[in-house]
């Protein structure tokens, strides 16, 4: 199995490190030809405007949309914004998932936070909480069509959604030592 990580900007190395620790071959994706033969793709955290502009400039938007029709894609934070149909602002989006997101929904950096979430769908999720890191994070304001809520904060606000083999999280599993979310994604990519 080989998983690509979109490496235009952001914390792609952190994803690569976790994938390799799980024995998965990982590949940096900067140009359309780098998508060939991949079993899945991660779009990392970063600045969604920067990643979107670079993806547009290097003709990646259409190939990424095609890839997402058949293969697994997981977006963390900025990546979740890029996967969405609507970010309530004029910026390039892949529009692959029927979700509407709100950027910087918790406020500026001083409001960035960490918290533990109940995630029973993860391995050992019934006994072990999942520690999630939110940085200038987006919220998933609504899930529509084929998209479903995967995780919400205790007050009901949605922070992870899934639509078939597409996964969006507003937090950063790549910033923790907990590999269970990556393992969950690898199951989708199989």
């Amino acid at each position, binding site marked *: 199995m080989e998983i690509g990580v979109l490496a235009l900007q952001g914390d792609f190395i952190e994803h690569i490190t976790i994938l390799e620790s799980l024995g998965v071959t990982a590949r940096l994706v900067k140009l359309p030809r780098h998508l060939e033969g991949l079993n899945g793709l991660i779009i990392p955290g970063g600045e969604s405007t920067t990643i979107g502009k670079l993806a547009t400039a290097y003709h990646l938007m259409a190939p990424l949309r095609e890839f997402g029709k058949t293969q697994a894609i997981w977006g963390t934070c900025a990546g979740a914004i890029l996967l969405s149909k609507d970010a309530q602002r004029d910026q390039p989006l892949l529009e692959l998932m029927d979700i509407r997101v709100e950027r910087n929904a918790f406020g500026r950096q001083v409001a960035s936070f960490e918290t533990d979430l109940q995630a029973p769908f993860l391995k050992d999720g019934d006994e072990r909480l999942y520690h999630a890191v939110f940085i*200038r994070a987006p919220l998933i304001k609504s899930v529509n069509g084929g998209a479903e809520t995967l995780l919400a904060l205790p007050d009901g606000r949605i922070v992870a959604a899934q639509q078939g083999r597409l996964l969006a999280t507003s937090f950063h599993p790549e910033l923790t030592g907990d590999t269970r979310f990556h393992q969950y994604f690898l199951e989708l990519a199989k």
Partner: protein
Amino acid sequence: MEQQIATFNVKKGLAQMLKGGVIMDVVTADHAKIAEDAGAVAVMALERVPADIRADGGVARMSDPELIMKIMESVSIPVMAKCRIGHFVEAQILESLGVDYIDESEVLTPADEANHIFKHDFKVPFVCGCRNLGEALRRIGEGAAMIRTKGEAGTGDVVEAVRHARTVLGEIRKLQTLPEEELMAFSKEIGAPYELVKETRDLGRMPVVNFAAGGIATPADAALMMQLGVDGVFVGSGIFKSGDPAKRANAIVKATTHYNDPAILAEVSRNLGEPMVGRQISSIPDGDLIATRGW
């Protein structure tokens, strides 16, 4: 389940999200829009770019909060702002404005010749400059969540940026070859906290993100710093002191992503117009050098 804000994890985490990107100095909301449209990952809001601070002389201080707030309103990307070295009240003011990062910067006139700000006390994260590993780890010890090599701001001459990046990265490579029993002596030699020296050795890199700054003026300069091994670049005077800022800004963004692809670097370097008028560092008297501020 409790939410914890302002942990060191979320402070250094924002810097991790900026990796592979370009942080641009801007002096107006219009500049900030141009930077965001060009693909900047963040902007540094200030009243004068370093080249002008250098030319004007006098005391350089924190920018007018009104200017910083206008820039914060104009863009969706993170906004950073500078305070003087050791001026913790300027930092308190910037934190109350809600800026996303504070640069405790040698580009402004230092307010304290002995002490930097104790940055752990703040909710907002700090980035600090360094010329070597010891200086970097002292800043991290005080709470900096991101480091940038200093270079020599406002010159358009990349030579000091290269010197500082090579020094820091070279010291880390040397550190990795040392046996455990030599770490304390190494810590003493470079004047850095032992725990951070050990952590750096174990990680094979600094425990926080490290950008390059000070003298980057072209796409090739940005790619040079990335190939040397930094995580991203700050461009100060190099963009808005050039002939075509929007085009140059966009080219530097692309060069920072595709830093290992000479064909793309050649393409983005074409027809950029006039670069900023540089100033050779060897022509600057020692007393006018900025990088030597801070300790």
